[in-house]
């Protein structure tokens, strides 16, 4: 079973290595986004409605990681279904759980690679958040891994409902807009009305942002971010299990 998971993951990496478009996009798109984030905040006045600039910047970095991982996972899964390679794989001796496990492993590797790139780039770009890297680097590792993990879970679940690659793109607002508004990037989650606060717990980004801020501003330790880590792990597991039930062979 583990060998098949490994082979499916390996095949994803073979494909990514040949996909020069994907490689260039994952280098230049986050770069562009983060540069915009930097200069859009540099001229801004402090406002009583929103958080401090450095808190928002931290949230937007997490959003970038969340979104790029989701997009990669969803597009690859939909493409395999549309092209028929997903169905073909099912005629070989391989189980659903092995297929999903293989994608999870492959996407995690690629997603974490991308996340490291985004974080390293942010380190040099934003003086405001350098401290989180120097003092809490090892706690940033589980947060990043779990954020990538839940993003893949969500991409597995949502991509099951997309009929084509174009259709998968239509789901992007559904993923991004709630994340922007509810996960506490611009204002604290506590300011939301109670039912929206409950909704924010369904968004993995909320946990990532909460725990990162804990480290940066409250000087928290592992036990302070533990609830957020558990929250992301549970959310990732639920979406992956649900995704394995909705995983289809054809569109």
């Amino acid at each position, binding site marked *: 079973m583990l*060998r*098949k998971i490994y*082979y499916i993951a390996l*095949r994803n990496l*073979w*494909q990514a290595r*040949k*996909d020069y478009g994907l490689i260039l996009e994952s280098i230049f798109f986050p770069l562009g986004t983060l540069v915009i984030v930097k200069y859009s905040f540099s001229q801004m006045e402090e406002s009583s409605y929103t958080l401090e600039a450095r808190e928002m910047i931290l949230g937007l970095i997490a959003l970038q990681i969340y979104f790029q991982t989701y997009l990669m996972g969803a597009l690859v899964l939909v493409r395999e279904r549309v*092209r*028929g*390679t997903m*169905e*073909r*794989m*099912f*005629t*070989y*001796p*391989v*189980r659903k759980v092995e297929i999903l496990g293989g994608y999870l492993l492959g996407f995690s590797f690629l997603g974490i690679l991308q996340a490291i790139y985004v974080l390293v780039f942010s380190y040099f770009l934003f003086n405001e958040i350098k401290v989180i890297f120097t003092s809490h680097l090892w706690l940033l590792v589980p947060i990043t891994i779990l954020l990538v993990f839940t993003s893949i879970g969500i991409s597995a679940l949502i991509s099951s409902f997309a009929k084509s690659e174009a259709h998968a793109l239509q789901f992007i607002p559904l993923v991004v807009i709630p994340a922007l508004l509810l996960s506490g990037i611009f204002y604290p989650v506590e300011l939301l009305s109670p039912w929206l606060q409950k909704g924010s717990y369904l968004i993995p980004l909320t946990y990532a942002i909460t725990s990162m801020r804990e480290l940066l501003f409250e000087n928290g330790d592992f036990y302070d971010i533990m609830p957020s880590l558990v929250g992301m792990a549970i959310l990732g597991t639920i979406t992956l299990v649900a995704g394995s039930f909705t995983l289809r*062979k054809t569109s």
Partner: protein
Amino acid sequence: MSSFIEVKGLRKPFGHIWALNGVNLEIREGEIFGILGPNGAGKTTLVRILSTLLKPSSGEISVAGFRLPSEDHKLKRFIGYMPQRPSLYEDLSASKNLKFFLNLHFSDGLRGDIQNRIDQILEFVELKDRRDDLISTFSSGMKQRLSLACALVHQPKILFLDEPTSGVDPRLKRAFWDYFKKLKQEGTTIIITTHQLTDAEHCDRLALMKSGKVFLVDTPHHLKDSGISKIRITKKSEVKELEIANFSEEFPKHLKELNGDILRLDITSETLEDIFLKLTHGND
């Protein structure tokens, strides 16, 4: 063992229609078995059920001694399936495509030398010189050939081919039939769906399907023979016209009329296509 694949009372609905509505079928080991029928007859659904891609809703199915759907995972080791569309990883090379599919079998107990097997199968489908090229650079005929190779790479006992010759030029079609006949010699059982009558003539036996049912199983020769032949005998003094069915059996009876001074003998037999159209457009 005479029937290698046995299907009894197989039913499968799609929405509110029965894609398969009580299919009974027996296929022998080592034969090339054609499933013929108009679009929407249920050919693809039948093959997808036999190759474990779909679950039947009722009926008894046994393939190579494995019962479906309960033992489908065990069966997967012994089958190869070539889908209608090539369905390959376009961003990988030919050998990487084969290696991936072979890896799935090797981790499930298959033994041997992976590299050797890949070379062997690429040689078989005549793509050895393109082994390291990306599939996205392949012509559609080459993709079809590699798709066949992917279905064959683990040396399956049973090969399911879903319309392998649709959209394929005559030369490649000929090549495909050469491959299939070689595989038959090695003992592979081949099940092929088609609506092309030129394919049907190559099969050992044919099943004719219509509206979710198999209504006739016969050899192509027998089927062709069942058609009506028009015979026109031109003698010096008269012209005689005959219409006979079952040419091979009936025609000898008319041979005695052929003695004497015949100037011309014209025989027009119904083609397999005529017979197929007549059978599939008649009443249920």
